[in-house]
């Protein structure tokens, strides 16, 4: 029998495919990065600057004098504590209210489902300040102006969209067969939700909770309009610093301080949740 000649095809290199350089994409990426990073950089530099006069491009004198002055103020620490308390309470309340609602939207069919679902967009579909003024008028009659719970309520409204829409997408993307398989091996409906549905939807829901927390922490208009004068959150304090003081550094220092919670939250998100969860939450 004739022996087959050893093949040389396998050792031959495939022709190199040149991937064309996407110049438009690169330009957009650079512009977007610049738009995000440059302002942050400027504020960051201002926070550590003691003297920076025109026309110098870099500050003449760096230092921590303004950090010292800011951090020794009692109202800064009070505002930071209050902001963290508010964000935690609002996020927990929002999760307690919105997650069961999101599950209902995702899994049950009931009259008016679609109208109700889209109504959560309404708060974001109109100029927010008008809505806040109207709510402030109601809160005034209810004696909620200038109170902690008044601000909680107004900030709760702002979290509804994230905390309903993203978890709905998360619950909808859980494979029903997985839940059925759990029923099949003996789990009741609540056990299925706890052991299968929630862990499967968990990372995306965590992304929603995180967005709510960070969003609430930085919320300014509601906190200012409903909270003033008694409730001063960090962003409200920062605005008053910037408005009342001619020294830029006070605002810059507070601004850098405000980055800290969101920076920690985003690092946590990257490690625990993964970028895909955000994309999935928005239907990606």
């Amino acid at each position, binding site marked *: 029998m004739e022996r087959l000649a050893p093949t040389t095809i396998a050792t031959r290199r495939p022709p190199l495919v040149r991937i064309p350089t996407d110049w438009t994409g690169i330009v957009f990426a650079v512009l977007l990065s610049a738009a995000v990073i440059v302002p942050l950089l400027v504020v960051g530099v201002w926070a550590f600057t003691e003297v920076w006069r025109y026309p110098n491009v870099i500050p003449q004198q760096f230092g921590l004098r303004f950090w010292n002055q800011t951090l020794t103020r009692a109202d800064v620490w009070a505002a930071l504590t209050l902001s963290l308390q508010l964000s935690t309470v609002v996020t927990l309340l929002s999760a307690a209210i919105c997650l069961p609602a999101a599950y209902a939207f995702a899994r049950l069919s009931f009259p008016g489902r679609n109208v109700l679902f889209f109504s959560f967009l309404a708060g974001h579909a109109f100029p927010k300040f008008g809505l806040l003024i109207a709510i402030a008028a109601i809160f005034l009659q209810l004696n909620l102006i200038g109170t902690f719970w008044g601000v909680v309520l107004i900030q709760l409204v702002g979290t509804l969209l994230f905390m309903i829409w993203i978890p709905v997408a998360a619950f909808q993307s859980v494979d029903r067969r997985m839940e059925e398989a759990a*029923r*099949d091996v*003996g789990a*009741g409906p609540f056990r299925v939700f706890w052991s299968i549905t929630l862990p499967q939807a968990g990372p995306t829901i965590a992304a929603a909770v995180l967005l709510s927390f960070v969003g609430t922490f930085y919320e300014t208009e509601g906190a200012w309009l409903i909270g003033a004068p008694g409730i001063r959150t960090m962003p409200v304090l920062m605005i008053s610093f910037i408005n009342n003081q001619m020294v830029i550094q006070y605002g810059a220092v507070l601004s850098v301080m405000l980055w800290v919670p969101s920076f920690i939250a985003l690092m946590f998100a990257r490690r625990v949740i993964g970028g895909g969860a955000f994309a999935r939450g928005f239907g990606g």
Partner: protein
Amino acid sequence: MSVLKITDVSKIFAGPTVAVDNFSLEVANGELVCLLGPSGSGKSTLLRMVGGFERPTSGQMTIDGDDITQLPPERRPTGMVFQSHALWTHMNVFKNLAFGLKLRGLPQDQIRHKVEDVLELVGLAGYGARGVNQLSGGQQQRVALARSLVLEPKILLLDEPFASLDQHLRERLREEVRDIQQRLKITTLFVTHGQDEALAMADRIVVMRDGRTEQIDRPDVVYRDPQTPFVAGFIGTMNLIDGEVTKGRFTRAGLALDIPIPDGPATLAIRPEALDLEASGTGVAQVHRVTDYGTHGLVDLDLGDGTRLKAMVAHPDLFSAGQKVNLKPQAMAAYRDNARVYRS
């Protein structure tokens, strides 16, 4: 012993769509019964009703005499293997298998023992710590099977478990599943739309169409002795020829065969392997194409009106396209009004 009895079960979905229509079946202890039918024949709905994932509109289902018709899935002694595997991706293999045992309150060492045993059974010993996404499609399907088997269900339900696997793996897995099923003597209901799978695995096949039973028989009987033209056409390759019978003679486009049945329309069914060909210049059919498969040949033929037939031949080199041939059926059956009226 575990016997599944389905009596007069119907399922009507909103619409109204009749998915399962007055279906009855008894699956004996240790028997593997295949529900076979095209998409929309109601076979999966029926299986889901046995598993408790759908409620029948009417009828009754019992396992060993106990009525399970209204029981939720978690209280039924059934184990289901899903087409998509449905493994819990946030748990590793061990946790997937241990979940059901934990719910039953078994002690840890007993759970570990049972999980190791079942992993051994499905050929995945030592895979407990793996994440399910690290497994191949075939391995995932084995884990899905093991997850059901570890709970020792009275009835095993398989919903097209090999549909997402490639042909080679499918053939190997179906042999393994059949071996395991016979070793454990577990009563099994198996849904498939692949006739090969049904013929290779089943003790009995239920051919379904539009939610109804067309035929329930052993695989060889379903193949050799189909009771309706649908079964004849669905199982294996079959030449189905519609024609007229007049005075005991069936005719269609020059083809004439003696069939002793009363006058009227009839459907003739001839397997390709039972259709002999005889070269003749005045033949009733013309060869369209000859395909040589090595072990045998397949000849495509056209009758005078273009009706396409297939014949299996031992020597394909004897035939060529354009050649005229006469047809000599060695065995055939005739159907009228969805029932068989003649068989030779």
